[in-house]
């Protein structure tokens, strides 16, 4: 970072996270089936956590230190907290009225200067549904896909907070949202300006990267919010999350990354990723995908439910994402459907691997895998206790801990968040 002046580093620090873990009791979950998020499975295992961190994960022989609250998980399942790599909670919150439409700064094809966190409404009731029904403990909020470069993403812990700073995942790197294909060319072509074609998309992107390189390699003292973000990408500090459906376009984007010296951390909505599993594996780029969405736009016409399984079979990185305030409540179910589609064509993927699609793989693509995403000693105690197999439609989270604090308990009517918006209105505090 020797070439990074102090002012540019200062640009990385504003709006810093003020999140601190809530108190929790030292806890021992015993007797449950454990999916550790890293592909491991322990039947009748024990998970220990205290002071916000995982203390130990093992079989029934693992000793429980004194002072731990023992929770019987017999017949139940434990996973790491579920992570959604692609959400618009907060920047397209409920109720989804025009006054709340804060996800697309659709006034210029490149807006790397905007930050999603400045749009997030922490009172979005969707955060609580994601926790209670989906076991979501961390999530990435992205700008929308109107723009080629939509701005910085925000990685949040799924804790209720008065401020977005109070939700910001401490230590998480920024991402930058990019978008391929139909959306940018439609939005700007519709206004009679560039880009109106896919070649226009690339031309604008390439020129923007060229200008960014000049900035990054030169004097960064003069503040430029857009170029600071792009320079952060070229420095490797900001991760690229690229909305891109079609296989041929993803291949072109990988080459654009080579041309300018950046890596795509994940393609999002990559419905055709299965056609280029080899290229994605080689690039080390994850595919963040739905289980079975298809056919709603031209570039989604070749979507197939076997996408995840074919990618896994090609040893490429799979992440199941939602992009949806309802889908985020059922990422586990979406993963299960994707697994079943694979099994039907003879690709048998172990349950424990499928769980990694929602946990460690998402964390890797978001750059937070050294802190969360798997049940390993020293990591954040982001934990879900499910009342049955999380890959079954009949199961729901029973308890959710974030940094060891129990923030949801199905058995305790008060241990669930109610947003300011919902207070005093029909349905306040209902089971939802």
């Amino acid at each position, binding site marked *: 970072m020797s070439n990074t002046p102090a002012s540019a580093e200062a640009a990385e620090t504003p709006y810093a996270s003020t999140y601190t873990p809530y108190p929790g009791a030292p806890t021992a979950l015993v007797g449950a089936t454990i999916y550790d998020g890293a592909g491991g499975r322990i039947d009748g295992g024990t998970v220990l956590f205290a002071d916000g961190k995982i203390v130990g994960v093992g079989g029934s022989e693992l000793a429980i230190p004194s002072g731990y609250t023992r929770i019987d998980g017999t017949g139940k399942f434990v996973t790491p907290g579920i992570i959604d790599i692609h959400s618009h909670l907060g920047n397209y919150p409920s109720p989804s009225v025009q006054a709340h439409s804060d996800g697309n700064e659709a006034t210029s094809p490149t807006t790397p200067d905007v930050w999603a966190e400045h749009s997030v409404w922490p009172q979005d009731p969707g955060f609580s549904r994601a926790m209670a029904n989906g076991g979501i403990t961390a999530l990435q909020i992205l700008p929308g896909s109107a723009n080629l470069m939509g701005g910085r993403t925000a990685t949040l812990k799924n804790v209720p907070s008065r401020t977005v700073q109070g939700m910001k995942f401490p230590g998480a790197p920024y991402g930058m949202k990019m978008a391929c294909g139909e959306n940018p060319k439609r939005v700007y072509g519709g206004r009679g300006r560039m880009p109106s074609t896919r070649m226009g998309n690339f031309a604008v992107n390439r020129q923007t990267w060229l200008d960014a390189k000049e900035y990054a390699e030169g004097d960064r003292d003069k503040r430029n919010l857009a170029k600071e973000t792009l320079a952060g990408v070229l420095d490797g500090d900001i991760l690229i999350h690229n909305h891109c459906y079609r296989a041929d376009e993803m291949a072109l984007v990988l080459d654009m990354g080579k041309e300018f010296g950046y890596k795509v951390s994940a393609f999002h909505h990559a419905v055709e990723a299965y056609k280029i*599993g080899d290229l994605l594996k080689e690039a080390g780029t994850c595919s963040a995908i739905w289980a079975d969405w298809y056919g709603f736009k031209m570039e989604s016409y070749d979507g197939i439910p076997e996408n995840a399984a074919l990618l896994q079979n090609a040893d490429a990185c799979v992440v199941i994402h939602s992009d949806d305030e*309802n889908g985020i409540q059922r990422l586990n179910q979406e993963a299960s*459907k994707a697994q079943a589609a694979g099994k039907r064509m003879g690709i048998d993927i172990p349950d424990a691997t499928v769980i990694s699609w929602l946990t460690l793989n998402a964390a890797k693509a978001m750059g937070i895998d050294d802190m969360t995403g798997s049940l390993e000693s020293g990591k954040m105690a982001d934990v879900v206790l499910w009342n049955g197999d999380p890959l079954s*439609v009949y199961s729901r989270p029973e308890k959710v801990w974030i940094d060891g604090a129990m923030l949801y308990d199905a058995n305790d009517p008060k241990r669930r968040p109610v947003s300011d918006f919902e207070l005093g209105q029909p349905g306040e505090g209902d*089971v*939802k």
Partner: protein
Amino acid sequence: MKRLFTLAAACSALAFTASVAAQDVTIINAKLAIGDGSEPINGGVIRIRGGTIVLVDSGDGETLGSSDDYLDVSRRDASGQPLVISVPVIDAKGAWVTPGIFAAVTDIGVFDVSGVRNSNDGGASDSRFSAALDISQAINPASEHIAVSRAGGVTRATVAHAPGDSIFAGQGATIDLGVDPEPITQARSFQMVVLGERGARIAGGGRTASNLELRNAMAEAQAYVAGAWEGEDALLTRPDVQSLVPVISGKQKLYIHAERASDIRKVIALKQEFPKLDIVLLGASEGWLAANALAASGIPVIADPLDDLPSSFEQLAATQSNVGRMRQAGVKVAIGGIGAFEQPRNLTQYAGNLVALSKVPRASGLTWGQAFASITSIPAEISGLGGKAGILQAGAMGDVVMWDGDPLELSSNPTRVFIDGIEQPLSNHQTRLRDRYRDLDESDLPKAYDW
């Protein structure tokens, strides 16, 4: 061991359907889910003759060989004796066998790619007509969305038009998802009117406007029946007012979309004002707040089951317990009208979620049988096909699905699908892509030659 089996029901069914392609088939040793709300039964037997289910029972311990012979008294040989028909027997070996899924209020078959305007007949917002629009004219049985839904076990559906410039969205249709060229089970099976926030916006910006639009339309239709409709002074076009005549006489169902509890109560009141209306409530996110009144009204509901967010101000009280609570109050509730990205084949997943709720403290879920009925017999009954679709019973259409597991479970899929007794292909654009990209080997020729 074979047996001879004479069946009057088969004869009458044959006389009506006379489908040359219909296969007679007997399925034995099935785990049968009837679709009527009961729990599944083991060792079930089901017979389909001439496209119609003629027998369903829990099995009598009898084993059949590879065929199940019966006497067809409607067909005689030269000596006047009934023909012996030899019917193949499918041994389900304990697999689940169910009625096909009945998807209520979908948009399948009216678009190829919803976002590609030219391929989408799901709405006609610039049309000068509204209530008279007839979606049966637009159904494409070769649509990939029909093929994909069929492979997911959906055998029959209702299809609705999206509203345009009128609160009347037009006449919906009931279709089958068979691969044959004739998809229509019943054209013009319902009219759709949109109230609530959306109807208010269409009508002029407020619920006051949509209320007047609705009442004016009723009045014009009544005037038309009385021969007192004056075209030049009317607000409706002639085809639109004509199309509302069967609605006001109760001959055509009126689906009313409303979400807010107060709007739902207005719908109930409408029934008191116009008693002949055959109303079905669609949406009903806050239905649980008016559940007792709904039950007393007898109005059935088609609900989007997993809404639990205040997506709009008319859905503040949305909860996944909505369906369970309405059901407990005695409302007839089907699951349907699900959003564009959630396809009809996911109705099983939705129903399974309502079963899952029964394990969540204070939530109101459904039993397995109730949940399965909510995507089979109940939507069929609401759609006017009670006893004919969404259920395994003698006299019902031969819409039967065999599954590789519990049909509500995420890991399960149909293995064989019959519609009107005809076994259906389960391949489609998606399965072809899957097979082409099973590997990425292009060492001999490009993928374009792999077909």
